[in-house]
């Protein structure tokens, strides 16, 4: 039998660690110039390059816009994830986190959430700009933003698994891509499908529900794998 008082303190410690890590990471991000800006610049840059490659024809651009936006958002988040655990790994913070009696699971959720806030959220806010650049009608922008909100969350949580198992390796970036990109398949299908449906004027309920479901599953399950990955990385 668990005493009610200890149960409450358990609950408290879960959310306290989540909150503490979340706040600490946010503070670190905000003190690092470019932490939130660089992924966004990357995304805008790649969209520009795509545009230059495809040509100035707006119709042609709009045809490819759904794929471009999602592939670029996916790459931006994935590349920024390489740094998610790296500095903590190097300065020993990660070791303290693993040794701490507080639940690692919630610490990880706090870390990934903070990371999402500085990478996923700016992309979401910049989505009208993406739409403008690629010739997507403004009426679809709210859906685009909603899709990016759900999708970037999934991408952050799944990608963090790759970051966790590769943090102790020198050759991080490319390896994360090899491991994680196959797992991103559902996100790009439903994310781009959402836009496609919206452009065709069909009901978008199905892809939205799929993305929401995937996000729930990723938030619940991915921290387990991330935790296991971090423990392995700490051993080596």
């Amino acid at each position, binding site marked *: 039998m668990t005493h009610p008082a200890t149960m409450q303190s358990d609950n408290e410690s879960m959310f306290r660690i989540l909150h503490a890590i979340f706040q600490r990471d946010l503070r670190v991000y905000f003190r690092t110039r470019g932490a939130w800006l660089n992924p966004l610049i990357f995304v805008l840059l790649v969209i520009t390059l795509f545009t230059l490659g495809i040509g100035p024809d707006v119709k042609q651009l709009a045809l490819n816009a759904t794929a471009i936006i999602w592939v670029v958002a996916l790459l931006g988040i994935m590349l920024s994830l390489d740094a998610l655990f790296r500095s903590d790994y190097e300065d020993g913070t990660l070791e303290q986190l693993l040794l701490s009696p507080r639940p690692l699971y919630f610490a990880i959720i706090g870390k990934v959430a903070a990371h999402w806030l500085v990478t996923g959220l700016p992309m979401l806010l910049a989505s009208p700009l993406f739409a403008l650049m690629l010739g997507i009608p403004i009426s679809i922008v709210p859906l685009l933003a909603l899709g990016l909100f759900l999708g970037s969350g999934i991408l952050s949580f*799944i990608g963090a*698994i*790759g970051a*966790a*198992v*590769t943090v*102790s*390796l020198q*050759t991080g970036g490319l*390896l994360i891509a*090899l*491991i*994680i*990109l*196959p*797992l991103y*398949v*559902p996100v790009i*299908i*439903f994310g781009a*499908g959402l836009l*496609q449906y919206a452009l065709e004027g069909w009901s978008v309920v199905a892809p939205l529900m*799929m993305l929401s479901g*995937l996000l729930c*599953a990723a938030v619940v*399950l*991915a921290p387990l*794998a991330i935790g*296991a*990955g971090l423990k*392995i*990385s700490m*051993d*080596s």
Partner: protein
Amino acid sequence: MANWQWFHRLGSPKWLLAKLDRWLPWLLGLGLLVLIVALVWGLAFVPPDYKQGNSFRIMYIHVPTAVVALAAYYVMAVAGAVAMIWRMKVADMVMRAIAPVGAALTFLALVTGAIWGKPTWGAYWVWQDARLTSMLILFFLYLGVMALYDAYNNRRNGNRAAAVVALAGTVNIPIIYKSVDWWSSLHQPASIKFTEQSAIASEMLQPLLLAIIGTYFVFAAMVILQLRLQIVLGEGRSNWLAEYATNKLR
């Protein structure tokens, strides 16, 4: 009461290596025998398909490789789970042994699928077929797991990291398959259809089932070959291995 000792002994590389050496010729021989019978039966004696003519016969290679390649990923992931939960050295080695064999089978399934696609669909690669696309993703999943092994200098940690990734992939495989299925039916109505798989004639089915069984055996033999290598690489410095090798050469 049944004697379960043999099961615990599987966890000992020393005991396992001796067993593997005994099993290998039987598994390989039996597998090759069954496979040859099935292939000769399927390729030479089954009547041609009324629509596809003789080109359907590549099915006797394509379907078994695809079936076993998919099953192999799950065996690999289960071995990874066992390794993570019970910290069994041998389970790590099994996982590592399966990855290249599974990747090779997936590659074979992709190539034979493309070859079969040309006369049937008129193109080597048809994105509308969800199975083809999912197999490609499976191939990439295998490659990712193998890349992770190679990136770690420490074999044990590489194994454990790969186990995590393999398990994450396992959760994803059904989702990937369903989403690709959904995707391929969304973009354009399928202009090309697979021949009805369920309506396969029993005289065509029998050699196919035999070929699948044979492929499983050969797969097991290939994994054993890899597993022996993994045991030698993983236990390279231990005394029993030197003893075993000397005894064997004597």
